[in-house]
């Protein structure tokens, strides 16, 4: 199976990319990861214990077509929802971890994602373990309306409780991190990391271009741009991610 790099156009063999943590060998383009891959690349082997695997929400607004959309996403990803949460270790340091999967309705946050994240934050608080979240999301889940919007407040409240208890929270923004997820738990990390080239912002670039009727400058809303504007602590290459996290965990662990 051959894959074309969306950045440099190079044709890559899928096994070669997989060996390279799904980074293009030629131009360093970071391919999007599934939650499964992210956990595998991040945690010590065999250390992961999942929380709330089967936690789901209903269709609170009876939104037309939503149940079919959910069923299709479940079928395609093998996940019940857009986030996987649990605990594990990184270089021996225990963490509570959450990983969003952008294949699942663009990693959007509805009641189940908000609830799983809030529970993860509360588990981190109860055990005084650092919380680590890998974000990949287009924002709120439209089909859940204001229920979805309120998850922004719910997750922000759970993280504020964690913060007041002085338990560290590290967020890692990956491609893409936008909308109501960026504007809630995405941007609340004590330390905020990002992967190279990740799209990060409140409004997506296409909507901005339509609104202001002009082309956006090259690199706008990319991780490097946010670093320059003071919105992030570090842009970290996927190959260095684990060692950077270990270094952070050693300093921040409560």
């Amino acid at each position, binding site marked *: 199976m051959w894959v074309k790099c969306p950045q440099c156009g190079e044709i890559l063999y899928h096994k070669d990319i997989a060996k390279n943590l799904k980074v293009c060998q030629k131009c360093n383009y970071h391919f999007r990861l599934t939650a499964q891959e992210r956990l595998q690349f991040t945690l010590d082997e065999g250390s992961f214990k999942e929380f*709330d695997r*089967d*936690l*789901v*929400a*209903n269709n*609170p*607004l009876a939104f*037309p*077509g939503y149940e079919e959309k959910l069923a299709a996403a479940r079928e395609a990803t093998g996940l*019940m929802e857009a986030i996987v949460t649990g605990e594990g270790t990184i270089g021996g340091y225990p963490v509570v971890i959450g990983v969003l999967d952008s294949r699942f309705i663009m990693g959007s946050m*509805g*009641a*189940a994602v*908000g*609830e799983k994240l*809030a529970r993860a934050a509360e588990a981190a608080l109860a055990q005084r373990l650092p919380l680590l979240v890998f974000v990949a999301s287009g924002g*709120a889940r*439209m089909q*859940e*309306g*204001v*229920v*979805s*919007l*309120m*998850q*922004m*407040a*719910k997750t*922000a*409240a*759970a993280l*504020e*409780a964690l*913060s*007041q208890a002085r338990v560290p929270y590290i967020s890692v923004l990956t491609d893409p991190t936008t*909308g*109501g997820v*960026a*504007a*809630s*738990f*995405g*941007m*609340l990390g004590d330390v905020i990391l990002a992967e190279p080239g990740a799209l*990060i*912002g*409140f*409004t997506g670039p296409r909507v*901005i271009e339509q*609104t*202001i009727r002009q082309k*956006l*400058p090259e690199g*706008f*809303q990319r991780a490097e741009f946010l670093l320059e*504007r*003071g*919105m992030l602590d570090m842009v970290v290459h996927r190959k260095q991610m684990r060692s950077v996290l270990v270094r952070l965990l050693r300093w921040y662990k409560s």
Partner: protein
Amino acid sequence: MPTYLDFERPLVELEEKIAELTSFSQEKGLDLSEEIAKLRQRAEELKREIFTHLTPWQKVQLARHPDRPTTLDYIRLLCEEFTELHGDRLYGDDPAVVGGIAWFAGRPVMVLGHQKGKDTRENMRRNFGMPHPEGFRKALRLMLQAEKFGRPVITFIDTPGAYCGIGAEERGQSVAIAQNLARMSFLRVPIIVVVIGEGGSGGALALAVGDRILMQEHAIFSVISPEGCASILWKDASRAKEAAEALKLTAQDLLALGLIDEVVPEPLGGAHRNREGAAEYLRGAILRHLEELEGIPPDELCRQRYAKYRRVGPTFYRGEREECDA
């Protein structure tokens, strides 16, 4: 110049006819009081017919009505000695958000909210009520000050959403919103939120985390505009009417879903036809909730607020249909 919505048209025509007939009878010295009284009665009936059977899309239009009272209108109608405070102390002063100190029903309060303009010129200046990060940061500064001096906070929500533009992104729109949500969720003074017009997505929510969420009868609150929703779902913004129904964005729907605490009535015909009447309804509701919250110690207030947000959105484990308590 007043603006009328399509569905208000028959009522407006009737009102015009009454005015015409009244001035005609005065001019000519004719007694048309019987006819006029009949027309007035018909107008009242028509008002009732129109305004008690509004569709979600009509509510969207009403919530955006250019003559609808704004945050500053309500502050002036409800409060004494409002003194506007300005600036975020970081970058600038955003005219899309207003706030300051005031007195409400004999108590010192902090009031703030999104501010739309009355006409094109003012709307240009106020960016149609769409804040930049500076607006959210000004609001947070005022709320932290309210906490410092032990004053309750009243916020008014009326925005199409947070502004989407280059400067807003560069200066951290998502950071500003996220920080407001986090800090408001544990602010140690009561927060009463009143949605008076459009509650547009994250930009509305950034001023709308509180102990009580009230909505005026014809206000809306939504995760996305109906136009935006229709263009994403059906690639057709003109199907906004359908989207408005699917999104459950009316005050009545949101109360039924348990997402807000109270629907505050508006005078028949909507707040824009009788702003004093609308303000009186708000005064009663805000005061009642404020009195309930005032005696609660800060720790308990924060605990209750946390529990309130923690409950939003029932979830359950697949296979068992009962709701899990958070």
